[in-house]
């Protein structure tokens, strides 16, 4: 791609987002972490990553005992944009960032520092501080509606003939998307056509938001703070240009944001709690749970339930799709008002791309009974993404 962050698709295809540095001690731990076998090298031999196989998830990076694996940084470009008065720089942050950023400043894991995060971003010079949660709501409405259409097509309801096949796979995780493209292209029609929240926000920012603010999309720089290294690859995908410009120009990780805050000398812990800018700042609880495995599924099910049954779910939670087991399944009885019947919707949640192969093969062979399958590459979901603070627990 010519515009945007200067990291062309061809360059990224050649170098990838994740690289092994000279600090590699040849311990071979990373090969057991990599879900796609993209890391080559034996014990005692310097390792390297095949960018064609790598899905950019960064799990090897956060699990390298020696910190010898790194990701392509866009921090320099972000700083340049912030320093350029002709640029209008907007930023979004994924739900998983706010509960991890505090770790970099000595807080307990899981501490929600949302308010301080917004304040720190304003101190760094971002013109508008938005939140990805709004776009996560958009994603879930899209995915939920798409699921309903696919279900209606499957039961033969008229008017839904052009909808995609069942089961529907989620499409929020860019590492999972690349894995599907690289290894199981036949499954792509089953993937939700919805963009990820990051990319939806980018598209909204440079179209709707730019128009409302009176800013030319060409002058707007869209930055996202993500718990994920694969998002850096995703933002460079050539199809992500809703406004004619790259939807999301730069992605920085939770770690990189913490580094920027420290470098600027901002006393993070003393910052007041601020709110996100409200133009697209409103969000629901459905978006917040995106960052954890089963969260997208739960949010989609709640949406689908409400749309299909016409009833509000109240405080009911689909807790059976949460948890840490790599593959979890549940059946949800959803009354469908339009069809006058109740449909058992069978769902599956996969956390860890290395476990998804068997599920896909069942779908391709016609053996799968699922209607909706959530796949997140990182164990536990985005909360354990490759861009999160690196833990050094001995257990």
């Amino acid at each position, binding site marked *: 791609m010519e515009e945007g962050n200067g990291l062309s698709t061809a360059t990224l295809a050649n170098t990838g987002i994740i690289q092994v540095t000279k600090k590699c*001690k040849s311990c071979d*731990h990373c090969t*057991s972490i990599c879900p796609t076998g993209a890391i080559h090298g*034996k*014990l*005692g*031999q310097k390792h390297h990553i095949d960018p064609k196989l790598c899905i950019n998830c960064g799990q090897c990076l956060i699990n390298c*005992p020696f910190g010898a694996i790194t990701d392509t940084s866009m921090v320099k470009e972000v700083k340049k944009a912030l320093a350029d008065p002709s640029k209008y720089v907007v930023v979004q942050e994924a739900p998983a960032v706010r509960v991890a950023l505090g770790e970099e400043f000595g807080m307990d894991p899981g501490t929600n520092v949302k308010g301080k995060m917004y304040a720190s971003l304003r101190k760094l010079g971002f013109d508008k501080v938005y939140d990805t949660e709004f776009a996560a709501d958009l994603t879930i409405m899209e995915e939920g509606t798409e699921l309903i259409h696919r279900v209606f097509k499957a039961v033969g309801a008229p008017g839904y003939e052009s909808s995609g096949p069942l089961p529907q796979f989620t499409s929020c995780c860019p590492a999972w998307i690349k894995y599907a493209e690289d290894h199981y292209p036949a499954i792509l029609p089953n993937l939700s056509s919805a963009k990820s929240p990051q990319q939806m926000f980018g598209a909204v920012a440079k179209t709707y938001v730019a128009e409302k603010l009176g800013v030319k999309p060409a002058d707007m720089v869209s930055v996202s703070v993500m718990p994920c290294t694969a998002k850096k690859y995703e933002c460079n995908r050539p199809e992500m240009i809703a406004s004619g410009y790259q939807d999301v120009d730069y992605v920085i990780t939770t770690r990189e944001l913490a580094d920027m805050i420290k470098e600027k000398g901002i006393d993070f812990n003393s910052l007041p709690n601020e709110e996100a800018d409200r133009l697209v700042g409103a969000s629901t609880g459905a978006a917040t749970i995106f960052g954890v495995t089963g969260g997208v599924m739960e949010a989609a099910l709640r949406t689908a339930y409400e749309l299909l049954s016409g009833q509000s779910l109240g405080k009911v939670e689909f807790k059976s799709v949460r948890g840490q087991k790599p593959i979890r399944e549940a059946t949800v009885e959803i009354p469908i008002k339009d069809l006058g019947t109740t449909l058992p919707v069978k769902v599956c949640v996969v956390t860890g791309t290395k476990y998804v192969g068997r599920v896909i093969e069942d779908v391709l062979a016609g053996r799968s009974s699922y209607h909706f399958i959530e796949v997140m590459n990182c164990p536990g979901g985005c909360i354990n993404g490759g861009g999160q603070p690196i833990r050094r627990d001995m*257990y």
Partner: protein
Amino acid sequence: MSEVRGKVLKHGEQTRTMHWVHLVAFIILALTGIGFYFNIGFINNMFGGGANASMVHRWAGVVFVVGPALYILLNFERFARFVDTITTITKDDIGWLKTMGGYIPFLKGEVPPQDKYNAGQKMLGLIIIIGCLLLILTGFPMWLWRAVVPPAFLAFCYSVHFWVAAILILAVCGHFFLAAIHPKSRVEFASMMIDGYIDAEISAHHNEKWFNTLEEVKE
């Protein structure tokens, strides 16, 4: 006391064999370890590259464990006596350490009589036993459980393994210098590396307490 042309038997055949096996394994381990840890091309290439150097390192590690383990099983009493000797620190040992056995020119003073192993050798023996245990306890997880242990634990194992190996390499270099090069004590070399015997006169001087027990047995 066994006397062959004025010599005494200091190290039995199995002890000498174990020492040889351990020494050769140690040299291979040190060389290959340095080679692939620091990615030194010419060392790695001697073994066919880093991966092969690592493979040689791991199997030399097995020899490094199995050699002494077999020796201990077959010579448990002898090993127990050795451990007893090196862990028994007497006033004479402190005296030896204060004068460093007379090896350091500016440390003057009478060197007290020593056991079969002098205080320096006792320290070396302890360093080697503790060091080997640490190398084994960290080395095998680095090899066999590298895929399942937490990264922080793996990094901890590498750090311990590296620093213990560095200390042992330096200690063994010092041991080699004193036992094979230093004119005052190089006669020890043949005793451990060749036939096990040492001149009775030298032994009576360097290991007086042990030598006297041998004479007492004869008398």
